[in-house]
């Protein structure tokens, strides 16, 4: 079950939301002036992106607001969520997140430089090897005969 970060309420489970289609498809201010082809595209044509997709969600069982999200359709990771009316964040997916929402992780583009040390790939923090951090690691149990 996806964990979605509502810009108003924070991270909530997918059950509370309704998916609302592709984002940034604006309805013409004056539909009467729009050609048949443009109107048909507006009604029916949608991207089928393999990769980062801008889409809308509504926090139906919560604040009931519509908001936007960038989701990688191959991994279901959310790269960003941002309010309706805001611009799609620039450069998201290359480790340079914009401050509106963080989702659960960077796309595969940020995975350089890991190797055997088991670092997490975060641009902000890099553990090295068995990072003991705040606790102590007594080390692996030793085998003898």
């Amino acid at each position: 079950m996806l964990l979605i970060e509502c810009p108003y309420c924070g991270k909530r489970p997918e059950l509370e939301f309704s998916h609302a289609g592709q984002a940034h498809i604006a309805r013409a201010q004056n539909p009467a002036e729009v050609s048949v082809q443009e109107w048909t595209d507006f009604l029916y044509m949608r991207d089928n992106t393999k990769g980062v997709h801008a889409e809308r969600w509504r926090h139906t069982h919560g604040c009931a607001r519509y908001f936007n999200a960038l989701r990688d359709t191959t991994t279901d990771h959310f790269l960003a969520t941002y309010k309706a009316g805001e611009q799609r964040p620039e450069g998201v997916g290359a480790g340079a997140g914009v401050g509106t929402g963080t989702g659960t992780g960077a796309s595969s583009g940020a995975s350089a430089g890991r190797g055997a040390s088991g670092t997490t790939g975060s641009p902000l923090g890099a553990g090295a090897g068995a990072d003991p951090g705040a606790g102590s690691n007594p080390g692996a149990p030793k085998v003898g005969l």
Partner: protein
Amino acid sequence: MKHGSSTEALGRVDRTRTIRFTFDGRELTGFAGDTLASALLRNGVHLVGRSFKYHRPRGILAAGSEEPNALVAVRRDDARYTPNLRATQVELYDGLEADSQNRWPSLSWDVGSINNVLSPFIPAGFYYKTFMWPRSAWKSLYEPRIRAAAGLGKSPTLADPDRYTNRFAHCDVLVVGAGPAGLSAALAAASSGAKVVICDEQPEFGGSLLSEPAGSHATHSHAADSHADAHATDSLGSGSHAADIDGVPASTWLARTVETLKRNPRVTVLTRTTAFGYFPHNMVGLNERLTDHLAQPHPESPRERQWQVRAKEVVLAAGAIERPLVFPGNDRPGIMLAGAARTFVNRYGAVPGSRAVVITACDEAYRAALDLHEAGVFIAIIADIRAKADGPLAEAARHAGLPVQTATTIVGTSGRLRVDTVRLARVDEHGHVTDGEQIMPCDLVLMSGGFTPTVHLFSQSRGKLVWDEKTLSFVPGQAAERVRSAGACRGVYALAAVLNDGNVAGSAAAAAARNAAAGSGPAGGPNSTPADPPIGAFAGALPQPGGATGSMAFVDWQNDVTTKDLALATREGFRSVEHIKRYTTTGMATDQGKTSNLNALGFVSRELDKTIPEVGLTTFRMPYTPVSFASFAGFARGSLFDPIRRTPTHDWAARNGAVFEDVGLWKRAHYFPRSSASGREDMHTAVARECLAVRKSVGMFDASTLGKIEVVGKDAVTFMNRMYVNGWTSLAVGRSRYGVLLRDDGFVYDDGVVARTAEDRFHVTTTTGGAAGVLRLMEDYLQTEWPNLDVWLTSISEQWSVIAVQGPNSRRVLEGLVEGVDMSAQAMPHMSVARGRIGGAPMLLFRVSFTGELGFEVNVPADFGQAVWEAIYAAGQQYDITPYGTEAMHVLRAEKGYIIVGQETDGTVTPDDAGLGWAIGKTKPDFVGKRSLQRPSMSAENRKQLVGLLTADPQVVLDEGSQIMQGPGQQAPVRPIGHVTSSYHSAVLGKSIALALVSGGRARMGETLYVPTGSGDIAVKVTSPVFYDPEGARLNG
């Protein structure tokens, strides 16, 4: 050593506690700690089932959840009967009743075994090519027989009476698997302060450590000791030597570790808990089995508990499954995995035979041979398919005097209900089988083709798998979620390396969880695999004489798939592994190919002349092992499956005989049948009476379920003008209008009466089913297209109770009750609204009619609904007021040609199609749907338009949904020109009426069309949809 006996000191079972159980009605005994499989083996029972298709006698192959053959049904009582359980996982309890499956009349004498004789005619996919002739035989003969023969177990016939609960948990690190890798990871994570959940499918933690010989090695003196010390590096003990961990025997380390974890308040320890599925964003589903192992489960205890765990980091330590070998006759009872035999001996003290042949491509089988030898089993030969076997375990075996023969394959076995002979042959340096067979009598065959890392959950998490040529297996590669793999599930087998692997993964996971706020990405790539000496592996079928495929060489035991079936699939042109899997059904049984996938891949890759990674793996799907439906249902069963919505008058309606219908989640009174001396009215009679009563005097109807939305603000009119087709600017305060709502594609979405209750306030009503959708549509436009409008929307559907009072006497009934409103015809014209009070409650009174009669709708706050209903009912007695239900409501409105959205419309109907073009505001520049209405196709002449239909025989009532044809008696295929949307018998008109959508309907007035039915064509005449009171005079009473 006696056949099928146990050695006193062996095993972790408690021999002081004898357990009685039955298998196929036969009374047997075991010990506390036994599984059904270990107890059967100790009792010398090897025949435990008949295979799925061929009904071949089958025995126990494995010792864990990967067991494909020993599927049993366990019965507590008539309602608690569970088929298809693996005997290797069924924990013995006193009084256990277990039965084998898929055999009749008995295991040893099974009529179904005729299929084995017919096997040449029933290869893979035979059902795609048979059962076709004669066609009539399908329903009467083939299908019933196939249904009876299909499946392995029998279903229970009573509903599951047990309780199943669920729980949500959040943690820093979830560790899946509590063998040495998982325990090591949990220790490391917990010691750094992380909140840890650790689970294992088995009743006790320990994993592979549980198969170590029990007891201190100091009590054994073994000739091979000193040599074993010199040669063993960091391998898991050799011979009957248990390994030491941190200076104590492995079993001691295990007990201490479990204690340490249990005592830590930040660690949750879950046994008998299978992690069955990996879901996005690090949610893992666990199924905990609480009572199936108990002789007397507490009656209040739930039987299973399903966990949804959201973990910051996951460590997978799921182990590896030993791979069987594929050779002709490899499925006889007594032929099992080498590691399984070792587990039965060391862990359960159940020796599975007396004279064993070992066939292997992997060093670990030598360890099993040594342990069985130690337990008194005669090892007739250790046949190694490899040209050389010179690892430390093979050396130890030779040193113990066990006969080792390399470059050897198996070409056949025999034995009806138990293996009694194997036939071996030598293999030359090119891998070809040479002439000459060795025939070896035996009652036990141990096989090992290496190990297959259990990558199911990793793969479900969308991690990429990488082919490892050294171990001939797929191992975890780049992760897509925050997950790490440790130990055998990523191809690390030596104990010291496994413990280290777990430690590294556990501490890294804990550290990453601490850094989680920094928004880290998925876990890094795996630690580089340590340079273990390779222990050997095989994938595919063992070489046979002349390169032949061999007969009855099983790849998938549970679905009875042989190498011949896989070869057939490739011969018939299937190339994709997904096709081959589905055509042969390999890997599709309840074991999901745990012991078959890699061998199938190995075989197919040779047939197709591709590498295994080129052939590829099929997708891993949850659940890892079967999970009961009830566990997923949890509490959402029976009356708790869906919420029930009731109106404020529900109880009154129930007390007064209402029959209810479901409208979405609502219970609505459908009709109110009256009882008399001659019995209770049927629906037809009740509805006819209710309709006549409304038209003749007065009726009352609960309309509370309809949606209501308050639209308020400076820009309320602007918003309404943009949303609904109507013009709202001219609607005066205190007046209402029938509103039509489209989607932007121009089709009718909803309708309802809209009242203007103030300059800046509209009370919008919707259909019952459309309430949520209309509000959603409005919010969508308001929030995302027109956020600058000063207007807000409030759902008030449940705040107002609505009582419709309809009929010529409706005003008289209400006048005496209503306060503060002049209800006269002049002061309150049709389609007006006024505020007042009724029975002490605030009231919004609508003069509105869905019946075509003079009528009102009384809106009061919901808490007053029941009392006001009763007051109106009392006041109406002198007019014989009649409560009516939704059926009568439908008939009455149809008599007037009023549409119901969802009945006359289906998402493809425009306002003009439905005869509602008049509602469209002519001067509005835009509203939702207007642009689409301008498309030429939206006003084409042949569009389906709303008309009425009268049947030639007025007593014949059409079926709703009937198709309509131009002329009678046409041969199929006939092109329909329309369909019937509503159809009733009209009591007031004394005949049947129907509404329909007919192509170019309005131009067909008076035409006769035909409705085909099974018993002939019905003639109908096209008319206006308004059947009754076409001038609408009755609206004024």
